[in-house]
């Protein structure tokens, strides 16, 4: 299960609203203890697609991810996964998300931004055989 404090969820959703009508992206930081995954904060990232492509896809290259990994390590936190927004689309992992997915074990948190407003946030995990995403239980805390 993935636990996200309300305040962190607000940050994720606000980031998606600011990126609208484009897709926003960032890292979910926190701690892992057995099967308990507790988010404690985010690290906002820059969508590196050209501006005209950002409405339907995102990417972050290895160099930017290296900096993010080093920053997470400096804070003593794990990277639990990534969040991104789907402007005017369901908060479901798409075929594109699956085709370009990294490793099973990361949380892929997706937020629908409908007409500029965050409406639904759900979390997904890639199957071990990479064939599909399954929804991950998401628990909000104060």
């Amino acid at each position: 299960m993935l636990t996200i404090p309300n305040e962190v969820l607000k940050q994720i959703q606000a980031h998606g609203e600011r990126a609208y009508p484009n897709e926003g992206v960032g890292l979910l930081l926190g701690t892992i203890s057995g099967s308990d995954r507790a988010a404690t904060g985010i690290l906002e990232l820059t969508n590196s697609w050209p501006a005209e492509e950002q409405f339907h896809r995102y990417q972050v290259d290895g160099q930017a991810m290296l900096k993010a990994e080093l920053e997470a390590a400096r804070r003593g936190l794990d990277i639990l996964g990534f969040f991104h927004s789907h402007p005017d689309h369901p908060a479901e992992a798409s075929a594109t998300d699956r085709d370009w997915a990294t490793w099973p074990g990361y949380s892929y948190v997706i937020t629908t931004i409908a007409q500029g407003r965050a409406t639904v946030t759900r979390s997904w995990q890639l199957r071990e055989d990479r064939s599909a995403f399954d929804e991950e239980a998401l628990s909000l805390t104060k």
Partner: protein
Amino acid sequence: MATIRIPTPLRPYTNSQAEVTVSGATVGAVLGDLTQQYPTLKQHLYNDKGELRAFVNIFLNEEDIRHIRGADTPVQAQDRLMIVPSIAGGR
């Protein structure tokens, strides 16, 4: 022996170790030693053709090995390597 940092989701395949000590004179040899020590890691780093998966980046002392000599990049005993994903997706 060089050290290689393992990203969070791959640690279940390295007995939960965040860093692994590896031997080898090149990046290719070091990765070979890593996947020999932890065979189940291999499928997550390499595709069916035996090539590094497109989203997998290897950094040697924070420099992308693609900008050095790729798998033939020499590795010294005190070097630190990192496995870092590029991420992408879309609606």
